[in-house]
């Protein structure tokens, strides 16, 4: 399946099934509604085959280039069928499982994620380790029957809805830093897991604190090698900054168009609109080259931090325009469309914080791309 045939076939299928794929809710919708919609679209897409292209056959895919997945997500965002945040978990976590899980585990589990049967989450950050991920404390101790995990994670998106978690734990001595981390795949209904959702400033319980108290995890759920979990985290990050960023760009383009259609005449200066549009074109050109490199089999690395800086700045600049141009809606509107503009504007404030903050990206660019040496 080449991209041209995939594009044509997918676009036709989306046209034909427009009514059944459309969200059941109107307006901004709740998080639960978003996730139900996500599951519905993934299931229909999986059954029709579209959701399986670009994934290896050994995990339920149909093979083909990863660029097919880039286009699938773009088409879904462009038609407002799924939200970028929920959809991104598939693009971030499935490749990690394919690269690091025991083959039979990946073969059993990945299809459930692709088909929308299950939501998964990513247990990385902790209260004392945000940007400094290598200092994480959540302890996994080997016992006769498996790992015993105790500790706390935070900012775990969708944990309260997730069936599984890709979890980073400390297995080496406290001072082992990135050399003593082990990754594992945890069932979220395991005894000892307590989940406390956090309400964001846009009023959504999107992420959670997750407490692990003597949670037993079988050894065959270990991802990659023991004490080599840093490789899992490092492998995952470029995925986090490639396909799913392309999808976010498609979402931003759609919202920019909807803003231009709705903005009162004279509310925005041409200069500010032009600059935001140029930033979106710049991100698109950059990310498009990244998608092509990935499709060609190149190994993605620190250069994807440039993509991340560009998309985060673009997202904030788009919604800065929204807040200025649609001020009546964002500040004072109480209808569904206004709630959505407000929610997305507020969410965009986090774009330079999550997934490696803007400062961390600049640190990576300085050390790895500019080769400025260590900063201490």
């Amino acid at each position, binding site marked *: 399946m080449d991209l041209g045939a995939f594009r044509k076939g997918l676009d036709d299928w989306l046209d034909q099934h427009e009514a059944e794929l459309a969200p059941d809710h109107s307006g901004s919708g709740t998080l639960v509604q978003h996730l139900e919609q996500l599951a519905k679209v993934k299931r229909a897409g999986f059954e029709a085959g579209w959701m399986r292209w670009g994934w290896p056959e050994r995990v339920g895919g149909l093979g083909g280039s990863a660029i097919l997945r880039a286009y699938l997500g773009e088409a879904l965002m462009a038609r407002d069928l799924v939200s970028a945040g929920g959809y991104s978990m598939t693009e971030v976590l499935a490749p990690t499982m394919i690269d690091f899980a025991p083959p039979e585990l990946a073969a059993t589990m990945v299809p459930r994620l692709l088909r929308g049967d299950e939501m998964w989450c990513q247990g990385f950050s902790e209260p004392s380790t945000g940007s400094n991920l290598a200092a994480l404390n959540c302890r996994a101790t080997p016992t006769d029957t498996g790992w015993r995990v105790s500790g706390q994670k935070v900012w775990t998106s969708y944990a309260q809805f997730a069936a599984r978690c890709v979890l980073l734990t400390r297995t080496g001595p406290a001072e082992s830093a990135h050399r003593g981390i082990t990754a594992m795949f945890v069932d979220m209904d395991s005894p000892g897991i307590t989940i406390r959702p956090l309400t964001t400033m846009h009023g959504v319980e999107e992420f959670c604190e997750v407490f692990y108290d003597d949670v037993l995890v079988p050894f065959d759920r270990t991802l990659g090698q023991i004490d080599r979990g840093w490789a899992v985290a490092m492998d995952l990050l470029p995925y986090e900054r490639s396909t799913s960023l392309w999808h976010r760009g498609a979402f931003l383009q759609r919202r920019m168009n909807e803003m231009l259609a709705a903005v009162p005449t004279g509310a925005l200066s041409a200069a500010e609109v032009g600059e935001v549009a*140029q930033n979106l074109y710049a991100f698109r050109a950059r990310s498009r080259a990244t998608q092509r490199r990935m499709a060609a089999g190149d190994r993605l690395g620190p250069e994807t931090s440039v993509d991340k800086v560009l998309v985060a700045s673009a997202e904030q600049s788009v919604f800065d325009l929204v807040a200025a141009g649609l001020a009546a809606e964002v500040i004072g509107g109480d209808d569904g469309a206004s709630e959505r503009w407000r929610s997305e504007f507020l969410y965009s404030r986090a774009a330079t914080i999550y997934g490696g903050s803007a400062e961390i990206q600049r640190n990576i660019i300085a050390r790895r791309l500019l080769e400025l040496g260590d900063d201490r």
Partner: protein
Amino acid sequence: MIQGSDLEMFERSLRQATSRHTGVALDAALVDLGWLDALESDAHTAIALLFPLQGGANATSFALDRVLMTGLNRGWALEPAVVMPPLGSWRAPAQLMGAGLNIHGLGSSALGSHSTALVVARSSDPTVDTVVEVATATLTLRCVEGIDPDFGLVEVSGESVDCAHLGDIASTEWDASVGLAQVALGYELVGAARTMLELARDHALNRVQFGQPISRFQAVRHRLAETLVAIEAADAVLAATGEDPSPQLAAAAKALSGRGARTAGRHCQQVLAGIGFTAEHPFHRYLKRVLVLDQLFGTSRALTEGLGNELLAGRRMPTHLPL
């Protein structure tokens, strides 16, 4: 299409030529190396190879004239210089008034060494432009010293100048030529910005304060990281214009390059600090060159406002660059 090892060899030769020569000597080297043939067979690749190097070396040549000719040439077998729009503008630089030509524009450093110049003139029909040839001796020329005397810009003016009609073109052809020129200038800006970044990076690694190289300080590192992001953003759109030659994308690429190069200038000058403020250090040549290049075929400011006006009027943002 130049590809693979040929491309690398060609790039190496061009790098050598731009680092050793400037002005007419570089023109001659470009002819010898076959850059004009490359321009004819694959304009985008030829532009993308040469202009970053020319900008990176602070060199000048007739290359921009030749890029404009590529867009306009109908096999007229001429090798003239081309008159560009005045600073800040991208409109055709002349107007036909009866048999004579009113002209107000700019020539590159190549103009002085040519006896004729090719001029695109607006006609009474807004969809049609006229291409004419004029003798440079009949024009009023002023060598622009200005902020960057090394660039060799020439101010060109004349009222009711005699000219030879070469033919008419659709004004969209002028727009396409402007697009090519904008991409070339964008690449030259990016080349200059990369050299500024390299100068600032070297300085940061070598300059010791408080007992350590200033490259260890996050404030310095982040300025240089910001510079690289701005350069890569512009470069990505410039590269993409090879696949999508729309005037809108070319203008966006030029605007991003101009803005990116000015961002580079601001951050790199701050990192270079005192030494970068002297005439002894090469930095100032690049900063000044960037300010001039930004003015040719539309400033980043004007092009950005132009795009904004188009989007606000159309109430949508056209999708470019399908996957």
